[in-house]
């Protein structure tokens, strides 16, 4: 019998899982369409377990970008998790080492956001079980949908334009993230530089856009802060 807090965690994760299903399918489909084997597609989900970074790596591999750009881009996309790691670390402090390792591997945007909200709201929650409920449910759905996508992938004709689903996933994540003016500026600057730099060698337009966007966000945020 699973503890109540584990089941509460699974329940909390359910709404976001509805959004995760198409995302995971796209990750599997895009991987095999990029020339990865179904096993590599599933391996990517199991080893990396970070959707946006996976899709970016797949996209760049398909375009034969340099390997340094593939790896650096995926890492830059995942740098935000350092923030989650720092924020949730105090709550993991009492866990045994192996649980600390497992919970870190399972750390995602959604598992972080849902768990930190619960941990700060309710001190009596069994944190390990609740977190494992949230993060375990997300992990299982991500793996299953990637497998399904990888198996479906090659059967979907190119003319359906399903490859356009990849930027649409990024777009949905972007719109969700742009919650204030500095983030909007970061997105506008990052996107503009990336468009201008679309023809630059080594896909440097992507990294240049990301860097310019972050700098613009910090600058605008600093100005807003001093005005207030």
């Amino acid at each position, binding site marked *: 019998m699973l503890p109540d807090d584990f089941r509460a965690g699974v329940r909390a994760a359910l709404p976001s899982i509805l959004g995760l299903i198409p995302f995971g399918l796209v990750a599997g489909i895009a991987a095999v369409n990029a020339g990865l084997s179904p096993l590599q597609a599933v391996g990517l989900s199991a080893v990396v377990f970070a959707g946006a970074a996976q899709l970016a790596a797949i996209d760049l591999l398909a375009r034969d970008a340099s390997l340094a750009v593939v790896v650096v881009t995926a890492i830059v996309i995942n740098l935000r998790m350092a923030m989650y*790691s720092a924020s949730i670390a105090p709550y993991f402090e009492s866990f045994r080492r192996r649980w600390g390792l497992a919970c870190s591997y399972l750390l995602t945007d959604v598992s972080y956001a849902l768990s930190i909200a619960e941990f700060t709201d309710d001190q009596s929650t069994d944190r390990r079980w609740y977190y494992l409920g949230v993060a375990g449910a997300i992990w299982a759905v991500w793996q299953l949908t990637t497998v399904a996508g990888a198996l479906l992938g090659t059967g979907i004709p190119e003319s359906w334009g*399903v490859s356009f689903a990849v930027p649409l996933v990024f777009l949905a994540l972007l719109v969700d*993230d742009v919650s204030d003016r500095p983030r909007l500026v970061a997105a506008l600057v990052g996107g503009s530089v990336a468009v201008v730099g*679309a023809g630059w060698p080594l896909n440097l337009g992507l990294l240049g856009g990301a860097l310019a*966007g972050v700098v613009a966000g910090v600058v605008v945020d600093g100005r807003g802060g001093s005005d207030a």
Partner: protein
Amino acid sequence: MTTTYGPLVVWAVVGVVGVATFAIRYSFVYLFGRIDGVPPWIEEALRFVPAAVLAALVAPAVVDPGPTLAATVLDDRLLAGAVAAAVAWYTENMFATIAVGLLALWAVGAAM
């Protein structure tokens, strides 16, 4: 487009990105107690990473600068992307965003 990299190279990318991603996730869980969290300026910069990176990924996929402004704006991917962005904004639903975006691309392609 499919990659010309061989299977071993792809597995190496999977391994390197996987190890680096785990290191990022575990970093402060491991370090906690040794240092007092992330320096504020890093935390400030990290807040803007998702918006900047995602926009840099999306924009070149939907904006294809043409010889004239009209040719740039009246592009099927840009129009479909604009429709999808509106759906994402109002519904906050990834499934709806993908479905409407793909349908819009198909409809605009048929109309133009």
